[in-house]
């Protein structure tokens, strides 16, 4: 009697709750925390005769962090990812605003469906199609030539990388922005008009602050995806100068320097962690009540 009672208490109580959390915790442990720890440990290993030796030396960290090429690459990656984040957020906003406020709910559903369609095709395939479009003798330059411009070099430039980043992130950012704008209480917008706020000021002073969390989360996604992307800067950006993901590949190829590559990867993780944490903190920041 008391045993079955105990069993019921467990089922309905703590054990039941914990059981549902285990898969997520296990997944994170095996596929995220584990590899992360492994990577950190590797960064202290040594390489002798193209073979890794277990050790605990700071030599890789000193070597990498003293290299100008690392910091150049770090700055360039940060710049490109930030540029892509700002551009994508600005380009996406009018589209999201239109979808959230000017289109019927049926139109909005179709638009979101169409924005998901690009993900049906592999990102790599989409980048290769840009490779054709942006080429010196490609269709885009043909159009420019027709109106008496160009030809422009678009491949193997920062422009190419940013086009690639946008291909990856723009549909996602529009979807996230549209959802967050759609959730704004319309009566607050009407209240702003009612109190004498014009159309442009309503966007800047009411809509953007009210959708702040969603807009920041969308931008954060864009930054994370761009910062860690290898494909665009490699194929469209020509890897000159290399971004951090390209530098990782180069480092592993030159003399099996896995520990030094791990240093770069750990630095990337630290950067992303600090940016993600501060963005989320800012997005959900509540005003301090006195």
């Amino acid at each position, binding site marked *: 009697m008391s045993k079955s009672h105990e069993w019921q208490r467990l089922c309905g109580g703590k054990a039941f709750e914990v059981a549902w959390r285990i898969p997520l915790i296990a997944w994170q442990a095996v596929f995220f925390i584990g590899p992360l720890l492994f990577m950190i440990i590797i960064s202290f290993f040594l390489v002798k005769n193209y073979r890794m030796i277990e050790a605990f030396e700071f030599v890789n960290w000193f070597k990498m962090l003293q290299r100008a090429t690392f910091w150049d690459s770090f700055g360039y990656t940060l710049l490109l990812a930030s540029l892509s984040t700002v551009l994508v957020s600005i380009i996406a906003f009018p589209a999201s605003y239109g979808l959230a406020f000017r289109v019927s709910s049926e139109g909005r559903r179709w638009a979101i469906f169409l924005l998901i369609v690009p993900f049906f095709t592999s990102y790599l395939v989409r980048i290769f199609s840009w490779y054709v479009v942006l080429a010196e003798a490609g269709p885009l330059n043909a159009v420019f030539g027709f109106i008496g411009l160009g030809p422009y070099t678009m491949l193997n430039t920062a422009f190419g990388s940013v086009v690639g980043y946008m291909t990856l992130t723009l549909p996602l950012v529009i979807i996230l922005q549209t959802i967050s704008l759609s959730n704004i*209480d319309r*009566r*607050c917008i*009407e*209240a*702003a*008009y*009612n*109190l*004498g*706020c*014009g*159309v442009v*000021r309503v966007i800047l002073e*009411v809509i953007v*602050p*009210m959708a*702040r969390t969603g807009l920041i989360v969308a931008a954060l996604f864009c930054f994370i995806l761009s910062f860690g992307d290898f494909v665009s800067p490699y194929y469209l950006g020509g890897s000159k100068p290399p971004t951090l993901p390209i530098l990782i590949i180069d480092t592993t190829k030159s003399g099996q320097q896995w520990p030094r590559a791990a240093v770069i990867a750990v630095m990337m993780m630290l950067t992303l962690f600090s940016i993600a944490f501060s963005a989320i903190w800012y997005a959900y920041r*509540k*005003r301090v*009540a*006195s």
Partner: protein
Amino acid sequence: MSQPIVQFLDVTKRFGDFVAVKNLNLDIYPGEFVAIMGPSGCGKTTTLRMLAGLEVPSDGDIFLDGEIMNEVSPHERDTPLVWQSLALFPFLNVRENVEFGLKMRGIQADERCLRAAKWLERMEIKAFSERNVDSLSGGQRQRVALARALVIEPKILLLDEPLSALDAHLVIRMQQVLTRLQRELGITFVYVTHSQSEAFAMADRVVIMGDGEIAQVGRPRDIYREPGNRFVAEFVGRNNIVTGKIESVAQNTAAISTSMGVFTVTVTEDQRIQVGIDATFVIAADLVRLTNTKPEADNVIACSLISEEFVGSVVTLFLESVDGHEFKVQLQERYLAEIDLKSDGSLFLSWPSASAHLLPV
């Protein structure tokens, strides 16, 4: 009478095939407290929103202070609205919410602060100036919404069911706040509500709407005692409605024959009455007498008690006549002891002819 501050001229509003407001004609005068009342979907909120410019009329003209408003966008009007949901800005604190309208009018920060402080004090929410709006109680938020609307010193304030989300005791309190505020400021209040008690308690004039049209406009007392038609008589509630045919007319009294017998109703001279036409009359529930013995009077009906509803000092009794017609009687709770409430048809309703009101034909 002075020039109306608001004028609706044949205003119609359609949403696709649905007609929300039909040929509305209404004048509102400066300093009036007007309540627009009606059931859900009667067009009262649409009427208010057209006044604020949040909806554009499909037909007709709206004048505000003598100027035609049809093409004026909402942010160019001084018609602040207090929303049912209050629609306070969650990303601004209490003071910033109140200052919003002033900021939009390009008023300098220090003057803004001064004018907002005056209203925060007046609405007794100064202590919460720097607080988040969502940390306030319902009543406090209500005061923030009022301060935010009134700080721009408008000539007219629009209110869309502002009290419907509050607890009953707060509603009474806020009614007093609103009535006093309107008296002190002397500005026009246009108050939309579905609640008869709110409208009757506060308004100088009540507009009753049904199905997109005005059913009656008048002082609360007049609407209560002399409903203009069956819709109003039913909406105002606590009315007993009886229909029949006019049998005879003598001087200022009409005799109406119904399934429950013949009843007499006092009529005025301007009511055009012909013998033989259908007629409906109304007796307010508080004007009916209830006795255990059959009184020597003109209008008497034998009834049984069905149920009673007790709301403190007043009791409403629901009764049924022999042929199944339902009647309501409202009386002071302290008189209840004088009557033996029985369900065997031995209760008698009676009323003087002058208490019955014949609806216009």
